[in-house]
């Protein structure tokens, strides 16, 4: 039983990271209907930004209280990836808006290849290990919970609340939802559609940067190829939860995290990704629009 709860905790942590990335996919998909394949690499870029900021802090001030260091890392990583995604959207996706559906998908794949190789060229191809930032572990009823895991789950919960509030209760969120429902009508009613879409990209990137920082803290290592696998799994999570739905993305992320850690705990670790993808296929076959997704209405 304790073993099971332990795995639940691990799965929840992993799932939070996937959920944070998945929100970026789902928001962008919701608003312009494109799969932003470069989002996983934005997440990787966020992790690298956090790493470099951490090294700057270490070099300039020696030791900084870890809470403050994490806070600065997250903020700068968010700004950094936000700027990147803003530029990427302007250069690679906006010219193709209104073009056919596969065109932005291809530029996104190209952007993903370019971003990971950009980091390889500028930062080197090797693994980047950092000493453990947070190492305390608590023992609660026989289950060991590390401070890292608590931070990850807490930060995720806080950010989700903030973003949920923004999307549902602010003028910006209203503009986003209106653009999502009908872009032309939203423009006629005076919403700056281009700006709204840009902000959506920036928001998604900021969340991915948080996920990147958390990933760096949790695993203590990052490499330029790290965008792909978490990216695909987060995308899987977004689709599983019903792409376009915010709570769905988080739910999907948590499910993927739980499936992964429980499968590794009770079966072989080798086939954990096979299990994840198989469950995705099975869920979609029986519920083709995801768990919380609205079924598409076909108009003739």
């Amino acid at each position, binding site marked *: 039983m304790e073993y099971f709860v332990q795995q639940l905790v691990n799965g929840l942590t992993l799932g939070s990271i996937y959920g944070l990335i998945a929100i970026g996919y789902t928001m962008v998909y919701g608003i312009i209907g494109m*799969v932003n*394949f470069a989002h996983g690499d934005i997440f990787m*870029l966020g992790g*690298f930004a956090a*790493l*470099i*900021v951490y*090294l*700057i802090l270490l*070099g300039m001030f020696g030791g900084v209280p870890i809470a403050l260091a994490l806070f600065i890392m997250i903020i700068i990583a968010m700004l*950094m990836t936000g*700027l990147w995604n803003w*530029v990427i959207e302007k*250069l*690679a996706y906006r010219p*193709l808006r209104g*073009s*056919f*559906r*596969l*065109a932005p998908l*291809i*530029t996104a*794949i*190209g*952007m*993903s*290849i*370019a971003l990971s*190789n*950009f*980091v*390889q*060229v*500028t*930062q*080197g191809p*090797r693994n*980047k*290990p*950092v000493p453990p930032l947070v190492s305390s572990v608590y023992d609660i009823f026989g289950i060991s919970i590390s401070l890292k895991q608590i931070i990850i789950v807490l930060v995720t919960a806080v950010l989700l609340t903030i973003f949920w509030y923004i999307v549902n209760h602010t003028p910006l969120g209203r503009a986003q939802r209106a653009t999502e429902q009908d872009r032309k009508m939203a423009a006629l009613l005076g919403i700056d559609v281009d700006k709204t879409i840009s902000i959506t990209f920036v928001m998604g990137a900021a969340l991915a940067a948080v996920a990147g920082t958390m990933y760096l803290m949790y695993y203590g290592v990052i490499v330029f190829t790290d965008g*792909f696998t978490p990216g*695909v799994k987060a995308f*899987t999570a977004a*689709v599983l939860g019903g*792409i376009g739905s915010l709570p769905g993305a988080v739910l999907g992320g948590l499910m993927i995290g739980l499936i992964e850690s429980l499968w590794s705990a009770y079966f072989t670790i*080798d*086939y954990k*990704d*096979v299990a994840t*993808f198989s469950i*995705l*296929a099975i869920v*979609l*076959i029986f519920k*083709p*629009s*995801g768990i919380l997704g609205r079924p*598409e209405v*076909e108009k003739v």
Partner: protein
Amino acid sequence: MANISQTNVVVSNNLMARALREAFYAGLVALGLFVLFVGLKTDQNILNELVLVQRWGLLAIFVAIAMVGRFLTVAYIRPWFEARKAAKAAAPTVEREAGFVARNFSLLALIALVIYPPVMVALFGFQGSLKWVDNFGIQILIYVMLAWGLNIVVGLAGLLDLGYVAFYAVGAYSYALLSSYLGLSFWLLLPIAGVLAAAWGTILGFPVLRLKGDYLAIVTLAFGEIIRLVLINWTEVTKGTFGISGIAKASVFGIWSFDVSAANNFAKVFGLPMSSAYYKIFLFYLALALCMLAAFVTIRLRRMPIGRAWEALREDEIACRSLGINTVTTKLTAFATGAMFGGIAGSFFAVRQGFVSPESFVFLESAIILAIVVLGGMGSLVGIAVAATVMIGGTELLREMDFLKQIFGPEFTPELYRMLIFGLAMIVVMVWKPRGFVGSREPTAFLRERKSVSGSFTKEGHG
């Protein structure tokens, strides 16, 4: 008169001011983008700790490039494009007769491909031609074959498949395993690999029939990953990440062999000096023949009921169903036919490399093949072949840029920038020509005379 010239001066002054302002902003943005990633480099010191290396000079170059680029775009390039557009709109449109090259492009390209290996041998000798025939010729032809196979699924039937590399892997591993465990010959296994891949296409196609658009895309991607992960982890059969090596070479229909020890070795029979170039040249013609087969089948199928059903499915699935077309079998045959060519290309890949490992079948390959199909103009065979040549040949060329070492110093390795440039090229080509290199389509059904129609009239499908 004076008045007009004055306004011109004011306009150009305004333009310059705007260009300078935009250049400044571009510089700021570039500074923000690159300050952490270019200005600083994470490096390991002797104690294996990460330290930062400062590279402010390089950062300054990046920012300067962004500023100059932006300035030139706003001040000169954009006005020039606008002027040209206006001039084009003003000029009367003249129907130009297509030139000789444009009319006979496919035939000329085919002739060029047939004489390509002898020309390379004549230019560089047998050893020197190896690189050009193998790295450029055969590799590009493999991608053409794969892209033409995927074109049936994506371009004709409009089903977005992100896991096409799975069938490539099935083909490669069918040949590798069956030839090393059972010792069967290439000519027997080539069709078997095609059939096995087609069977997998049907098996994987069946559960995803209900899915559409991006849901279909993610499930096919998942299948591609599952097959790769199984290949990695099923070590008893596939030897995992080590891969299978020492795969038997193909022979010329069993008459001449390319094994050095065999009695009927090609070079021995003809009394030629020993060289590996004969085998490569043979493989080149084999690849060309397989490509032609794929093209022939695609062209013929488009004129048959099944091909028309695919295109109808792409245009409108509901209309298709109400006209009595069985969408289930239509989709499955598209998957199976596409997969078959993937499998054939895969077994050819295995025989060419003599080695297969799961490393060759990552998602990036699927993405590259899909990119070639879309960049070429979905559904257009010639466009896809051109895209494969430009994208694959272009990145291969970067391996050959040794003279750049003399400019940037000996540490400069152009190979490192290969995929970076590949990714950027994908974006640039797509933004420049969203409908692909070949923007027109040849309809197979027409009234009185065949006319090319713009690619923007064809739909991309919802499946």
